[in-house]
């Protein structure tokens, strides 16, 4: 099993579920009593990013670093200086949500020299039902481009196969097999398998730890 590190960085293809994974991961760390900062490094997607759930995180005691004020709603590459603080402050756990694909990962490269060897896990989130990661060669190709753009090495995959609301356990298992195969070829571990909380009971006994997810980023007609 992969050892958790102080800094967890979530990369992946567009729409792989990075942000949901990162948000849930931050909440899980917080529930364990850790001091947690969520860093929004998504310069690519102007919607559905960490800053849109800032309030929900802050009420849980999670600190959020993302562009503030006018910059929060702008489509400009604004990186708040507080990001460096998180990377260097050894008393806080940092959860970093990176933008999708290689173009999103480019922003991460800027922090390469601020990330001490061994202080972080660089995750690559895979949803095998997304266009460009539907098969092993596709997964390897996007991963390769993300590594090149960030100039960093991925050290674990996160399996997140889903078809949104139409996901059932079979959907997950079928996709998960592909992720395992990709991980095998890459000689990388699969850190965990993300599944919606209501499906977790039906997916016990996987060789990879399950990560039950509560979806945070909702559409306006899903506001309960």
């Amino acid at each position, binding site marked *: 099993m992969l050892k958790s590190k102080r800094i967890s960085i979530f990369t992946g293809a*567009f*729409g792989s579920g990075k942000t949901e994974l990162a948000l849930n991961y931050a909440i899980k760390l917080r529930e364990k009593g850790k001091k947690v900062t969520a860093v929004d490094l998504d310069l690519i997607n*102007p919607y559905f990013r960490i800053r849109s759930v800032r309030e929900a995180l802050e009420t849980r005691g999670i600190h959020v670093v993302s562009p503030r004020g006018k910059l929060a*709603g702008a*489509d400009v590459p604004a990186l708040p200086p507080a990001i460096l603080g998180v990377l260097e402050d050894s008393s806080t756990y940092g959860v970093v949500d990176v933008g999708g694909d290689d173009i999103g990962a480019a922003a991460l490269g800027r922090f390469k020299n601020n990330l001490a060897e061994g202080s972080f896990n660089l995750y690559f989130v895979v949803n095998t039902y997304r266009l460009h990661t539907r098969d092993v060669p596709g997964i390897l190709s996007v991963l390769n481009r993300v590594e090149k753009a960030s100039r960093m090495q991925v050290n674990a995959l996160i399996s997140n196969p889903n078809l*949104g609301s139409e996901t059932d356990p079979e959907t997950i298992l079928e996709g998960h097999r592909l992720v395992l195969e990709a991980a095998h070829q890459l000689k990388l571990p699969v850190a965990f398998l993300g599944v919606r909380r209501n499906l977790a009971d039906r997916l016990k006994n996987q060789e990879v730890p399950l990560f039950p997810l509560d979806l945070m980023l909702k559409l*306006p007609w899903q*506001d309960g």
Partner: protein
Amino acid sequence: MKGNEAIGEGAVRAGCRYFFGYPITPQSELTHYLAKRLPEVGGLYLQAESEVASINMVYGAAGAGARVMTSSSGPGISLMQEGLSYLAGAELPCVVVNLMRGGPGLGNIAPSQADYFQATKGGGHGDYHLIVLAPNSVQELLDFTGKAFELADYYRNPVMVMADGIMAQMMEPVELKDEAQVEIPAKPWAATGMIDHPGSKRIINSCYVIPEEMEAVNIRLKEKYTQITLNEQASEGYLLEDAEIVLVAFGTVSRICRAVVEKARQLGIPAGLFRPITLWPFPAEELKRTTGKAKCFLSVEMNMGQMVEDVQLTINGRAPVYHYGRLGGMVPVARDVLQEVQKLYSGGVVK
């Protein structure tokens, strides 16, 4: 799929092989997707120097008979209005995607429906109409983009697919049908070079200096618009049979209003939803036909009150028509709309 990707894939599957555009949030992933996808199928993606250039490149490609598309958001669509008028005047088929954002002016990148007037009432100069389709799911973004190309070719008219940033950015599962060979109808008017049609000049033009000639063209266009109005109105109804209060909404807001109707029904309020799918032609016939029991209408929009005018024209004084809107890129919240419905229902408007 993401909404932006679905539009791109829908276009490719409809036989679109040319895209001219210029990036603007929230539709940049669409251009990104087509930049990758079009070369795979032997097509051409070109980032123009501006939206004005893109729409004129569309004019050129459409004039040569190609299935061609461009896309933008509010500010870019405004820049394209001159070209759209020319396209309508020269009767050139093409598809234009508008993923609306907050305005006026540079506005912001949040979702909006404030370009309804621009899309349905002209936008550019002269008497003309675009056909305007308003999808409300990622599946429909894919399907309607394909449908838009068919309508454009059939009527020789520009067609707009209009949605907003939420639709563009959201993800939903989609069903991709097997790729069938697309039959692009013959275009005996297209200027493909004299080698193709020796002896017969084909001229793509919207300039008629003699008023009598221009008027004849205008009359022909009017007949075409009448045909489109008769044949192409499309809409969807939800719980309208016994609805006393009818919400009218398109796109993103129709999804919110569906949830509102369900909640209102739980509270014993006989609410229903009328959802225009074509914004032009506005589905007036169906709105008149399916809302016989309605005692009041509430048009819910992300603007100051635009579609509400078409609802009023259609209802023509038979029942009161109200508007609820959020502005500036804000999205209506279901419980706020429900409150508005409750207010209208209990306030004696619905008796």
